[in-house]
């Protein structure tokens, strides 16, 4: 087990104890002269994944390196591979659904061999793996954990929209409790998803990742800082991006901002990062966003029809609330260390 440390800083954090220099802070307006995902993608209106991918690519290009991406089957692959122009000057390798981590390893091995042979300049590429929550939490988990365990230098990005949207909204291991999906229908016998939601970053840290971070496209400054840190820090780095999906979440297409804000205020999604200092085997946790107000999870359920069934059942909402509070309690020392009073009242709501 690793030793847990908390950062006394709360908020976006371009500094890292693993890096001699801070990474570039793009500021609140993200006005940087790089291109991300190019035109021609076929994402739905209001898709958070497209924005997330765009920001990741823009941030990676700030490093000045050539991006070599391996992408797993999923929404992101389908909507960005119908026009090769989409990825601009990024080299892309689409492999099978279960194999994003393994493909990443292959890319890394070959590139390091090419560097040794003098065919590629040292340190001139950044290796990116990208998959959805189905391809990460479920079918791709073995390959991902094995890649992390190998300790290779690269970035793995999970675009988490909490179900299999590409195949028609089936539940995944990232689906929150009570959610209505086509394989976890909300009815009289089965009340939506009954499985406990899994947390990728916990697994990645346990497997030995150097750096893990949870981000969302709404806070692009934070997301782009995290991406650059992941590119700079040596070893396997895992980024998980909250990806709003109007199609699968049965929400309006113009409430991207509201839904993400509610996710943060109800702490259904926590923006944080953790970096591992290998010598002392300590992991430094940083909270990157402190909600101005704490809202009960019931607020989060309102804008999304996937939660329409569970809203009517206080006991399921209570379960969801308890799961959130249990995870939020982890951050108590971080808040107290920053002189922020620990609020218990959200627990009761």
């Amino acid at each position, binding site marked *: 087990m690793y030793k847990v440390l908390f950062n006394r800083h709360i908020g976006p954090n371009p500094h890292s104890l693993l890096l001699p220099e801070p990474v570039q802070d793009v500021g609140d307006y993200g006005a940087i002269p790089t291109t991300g995902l190019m035109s021609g993608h*076929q994402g739905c209106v209001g898709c958070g994944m497209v924005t997330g991918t765009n920001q990741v690519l823009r941030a990676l290009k700030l490093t000045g390196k050539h991006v070599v991406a391996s992408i797993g089957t999923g929404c992101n692959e389908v909507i960005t591979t119908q026009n090769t122009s989409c990825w601009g000057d990024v080299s892309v390798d*689409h492999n099978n659904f279960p194999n994003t981590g393994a493909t990443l390893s292959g890319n890394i091995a070959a590139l390091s061999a090419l560097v040794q042979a003098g065919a590629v300049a040292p340190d001139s590429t950044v290796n990116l793996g990208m998959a959805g929550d189905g391809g990460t939490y479920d*079918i791709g988990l073995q390959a991902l954990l094995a890649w992390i365990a190998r300790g290779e230098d690269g970035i793995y990005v999970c675009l988490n929209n909490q179900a299999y949207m590409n195949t028609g909204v089936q539940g995944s291991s990232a689906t929150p409790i009570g959610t209505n999906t*086509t394989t976890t229908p909300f009815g009289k016998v089965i009340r939506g998803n009954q499985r406990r939601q899994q947390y990728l970053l916990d697994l990645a840290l346990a497997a030995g990742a150097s750096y893990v971070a949870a981000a969302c496209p709404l806070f692009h400054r934070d997301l782009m800082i995290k991406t650059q840190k992941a590119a700079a820090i040596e070893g396997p780095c895992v980024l998980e991006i909250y990806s709003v999906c109007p199609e699968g979440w049965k929400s309006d297409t113009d409430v991207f901002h509201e839904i993400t804000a509610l996710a943060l205020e109800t702490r259904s999604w926590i923006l944080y990062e953790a970096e591992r200092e290998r010598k002392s085997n300590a992991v430094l946790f940083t909270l990157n966003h402190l909600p101005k107000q704490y809202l009960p999870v019931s607020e989060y359920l309102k804008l999304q029809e996937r939660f329409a069934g569970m809203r009517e059942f206080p006991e399921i909402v209570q379960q969801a609330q308890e799961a959130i509070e249990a995870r939020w309690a982890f951050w108590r020392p971080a808040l107290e260390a920053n002189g922020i009073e620990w609020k218990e009242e959200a627990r009761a709501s």
Partner: protein
Amino acid sequence: MHPDLVLRIAGESGEGVITIGETLCRIAAREGVHIVTFRTFPAEIKGGACMIQVRLSEGPIPYHGEQVDFLVCLNQVAVDENLPDLKENGALLCEAECDVSEQPGRTVYKVPFDRIATREIGSRISKNIVVLGSLSHLLAIPKKSIEAFISEKFARKGKTVLDHNLEALQKGVDFAEQHLAKKDPYKLPGGSDQKRLLMTGNEAIALSAVAAGLKYFFGYPITPASEIMEWLAVHLPKVGGVVLQTEDEISAVCSVAGASWAGGRSMTSTSGPGLSLMSETVGLLSMAEIPAVIVDSQRGGPSTGMPTKTEQSDLFLALYGSHGDVARVVMAPTSVADCFRVTALAFAIAEKYQLPVIVLVDQATSARLETIDPQILDRLPQASRLCAAPGDGAPYARYRLTDSPVSPAAIPGTEGGEHMVTGMEHDEFGNFACDDETHTAMTVKRFRKLDEIENDPLTQDLCTRLGDENGEIGVVTWGSTAGPVEEALAVAKGLGISAQAIIPRVLNPLPHKELKAFFGKVKRVIVPELNFLGQFASVLRSTYRIPTIGLTKIKGVPLEPREIVEKIVEAASASNVRSMKRYGRAG
């Protein structure tokens, strides 16, 4: 042929195209009309061209029809793409702004669907209901039945939504009444009082599985098979069954192995990529003698391929996938109605012979809506597992070698029936054994099951025979290509060519007696199928040592009868084709 109507609705995905088609199907089915549909979906998640073709008839029909009588297009792209398929003297109903004009041999009706929906009703999404209104007027569909259906469909969404939709329907009807003069002869075919079920191939498979006693379903999302899991997720718990979505296909099929070993009827459904992952376990199921039903809804391959398009290219994988000598049964239903019979048969064979059964359907059958005679549910084949009655003092041998290749199976956990099943080669008790004698005896035991299945009463008379039984031109096909073949034979007959067809439902073990007799009668064998290699033709050539005329297609859509007719005409007129040589079964 019965009087029929081929109707196609085309537009952009998300415009409600499929809903119009499905609504029409449901209304027509209630009127007792026979229906077969074909749907194409775009690969995009939202948007992209899509269409539904509906063939409505007074009598049974095998295929969704080639040339379209009545075309409905919601935008210009749809007009451009689909107009070539409109038959001579066909009718087109389209959005007013479309650039297409009436000409001799084509009736065009234009309705400003967009404007009516956005301006008069104030909601763009009700456009498809406006279309439905105009269409129902033109095809003389009783308005009452549409209203009744819409009332039912939207009742749960509250009065406002319902009124909204009824208004949209009325506006569509009104516009057609006031502005469109009926100039074409097409109308909804007459029906009957016979009630019919209307469902997709995927629903038929799921329902049949429940009827056959399915208790445990394990699956993983994959187009176009997900619908089976989704249907079961809603309905299986109602009869005390369990649906579990696993983390990948390997786990799905291994869960099936676990549940089935423990005594419950279990199934998984997938598509080609999933069956590839499951292949290792197919070998284990065969080796450990565990009953399992694996449904593969084929799509364009290899790899991720064309997930929303149809193909019949997993035959080799189903027949030969997995290492070693693997005894397995492969079946292929030919229609939605057939999905019922074959799925139930798959359970019966799997349980009776304790081995894996792979059911091959394809995207076209999976997604196709078809009317079915409800009596079919009463005639499903049934069989159960041979159970052991341990406890007589003698040690229980799971793989006892007897005259029959099927050994009695004990439920794990029963007193005296404790045993071990294993993927390793084993002796009668399940102990690891790799001596030549045991491996030979056990391999022979496993493959003798196939001989028994071939002669089992359950699998007799399962071949569809079509055409003139003295026909010199023979057609052998499998799966959903049976529909176009049936139509092609009728057309060939009209051309004065005597042809016959045989369509086996069990592809492994093949019905040798029937096929040999068939090959004894015909002079040419055409094998139409939807793959590049001519996989079934290859199997027939190697098994029966006969020359075959391949007819393959890999365009992501079913074969059309005229393509088969062309081949039949060619075969009938060709003089240089080698005559059939018959050596009987190879090996």
